[in-house]
């Protein structure tokens, strides 16, 4: 099989999956640019193994995506991530209620978590997988997933408790 044919097949494979995969990658990295970079890295590995891959390519791709993210995605410095988050182009328009604002803030707070905790929370709350399924995707013991999720949520709660809507939208509460 030529490389061109593999590329064509990969394009076909991505036709219905690419948007969802990119959304996942954006959540894992905190910005659209970094998400694209992460997804491309995972796809590059998929393409490299396309000919020899046995089984479900999507499963392979997802596992690669999450493992790269949990690994800290080598090209992403934490500072760079935070800077990108400040100018994230995926920010929805401001909302009038504090609760809606808190939803946005929580997702932005994800980037402050260690990569492994972030990957677990995206699998649990975006992919809606159980702890056992999450453990299977990451190849970790279930106990590790459980503790990572617990620590991640606890940290988010701490951040959420200190959250003020003025931080995001410059409007005063009350």
């Amino acid at each position, binding site marked *: 099989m030529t490389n061109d044919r593999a590329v064509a097949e990969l394009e076909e494979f991505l036709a219905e999956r690419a948007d969802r995969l990119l959304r996942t990658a954006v959540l894992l990295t905190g910005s659209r640019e970094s998400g694209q970079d992460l997804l491309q890295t995972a796809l590059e590995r998929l393409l490299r193994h396309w000919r020899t891959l046995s089984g479900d390519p999507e499963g392979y791709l997802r596992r690669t995506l999450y493992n790269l993210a949990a690994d800290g995605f*080598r*090209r992403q410095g934490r500072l760079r991530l935070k800077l990108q988050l400040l100018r994230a182009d995926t920010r929805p328009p401001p909302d009038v209620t504090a609760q809606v604002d808190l939803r946005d803030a929580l997702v932005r707070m994800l980037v402050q978590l260690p990569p492994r905790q972030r990957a677990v929370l995206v699998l649990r709350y975006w992919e809606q997988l159980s702890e056992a399924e999450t453990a299977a995707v990451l190849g970790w013991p279930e106990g590790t997933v459980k503790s990572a999720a617990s620590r991640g949520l606890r940290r988010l709660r701490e951040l959420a408790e200190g959250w003020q809507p003025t931080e995001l939208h410059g409007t005063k509460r009350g």
Partner: protein
Amino acid sequence: MDMKTDVEELLRDGMGRFTEGVRAPAGLAASVSQRHRRRVAVRVSAACGGVAAVAAAATLVAVGLPGGGPATTHHAGTQARTVTYLVSRVKQALANEHRVFYGRTNGTDGPSITWVYGPRSRWEELTGTSCGHALPNGDCTHQDGSERYLAQGTARVGGKLTGVYVTYYNRKWSLSPEIVPANACSTTARMEMSGVPVPTSHWSSFIDATLACGTASVTGHVWIDGQETTKITGAPVTERMQPGEAKALGEKWTRGEWTLYVNPKTFLPVRIVSATSTFGGPRASYKGVLVTDVRWLKPTAANIAKATITIPPGFRQVASPASQ
């Protein structure tokens, strides 16, 4: 408000909202393919750079440039005196070059090691703490370890020393493409210096040539691990990317920089710092920095053997690095 429940629910909602409207660009697979080709090309280019530098240095020595004339013409004051002093040590330095270069590199893209002796070279990328490779089932292999991921350099193939590229994770190897020599003072050679260490033993000739043509200058004296070194900084070089690369990376320009910390007695590098950055496009700019600590070892049979790649039995030969 019940924070325990609410945070989970709000997080779930927030994730959907945050990524609302995110669409993957068209031609994603083609773009990934281009990116893969570029990565392979960069690695091949990095491996070829050493021979380019050796060839360039050899040419310059042959035509007598290391005599110091051009350097004193183009540089004044301290710079000129330092260059003359350094050039005067070339003969002594060349004697020291009969040692084996061993460099250990750490940087943005993970650790690597470089062994060089004469025409032999072996550059190996290690996985370090990063997930260097994912198996077909998606698991990260070698994570938190320090195992070989790929190698580039020379191997004995059919009794002849030949350029090869080996990927350990999928047990494949290929012959490296033909090497095109570049002048030590050329933009190509300067750009190659901004990557992984140029696999050459002839550092003193290379340094001498770059000082003579003005593409590097002495910028100070620095103590490294209790040893005084002369700091030599290469002039940064900026190039416009090829259209395919620019599109794949979302950036327009690439810039290379390098600094050598040289033992003033032996004229050999103790540390090499190189940096490559890309910028000028819609993506966030990127800068990768590599720091290589160098040791010069005795040319024992064991050390010389380490400067050659051994292709493990059972590895399959493929047409080119791009097929790996």
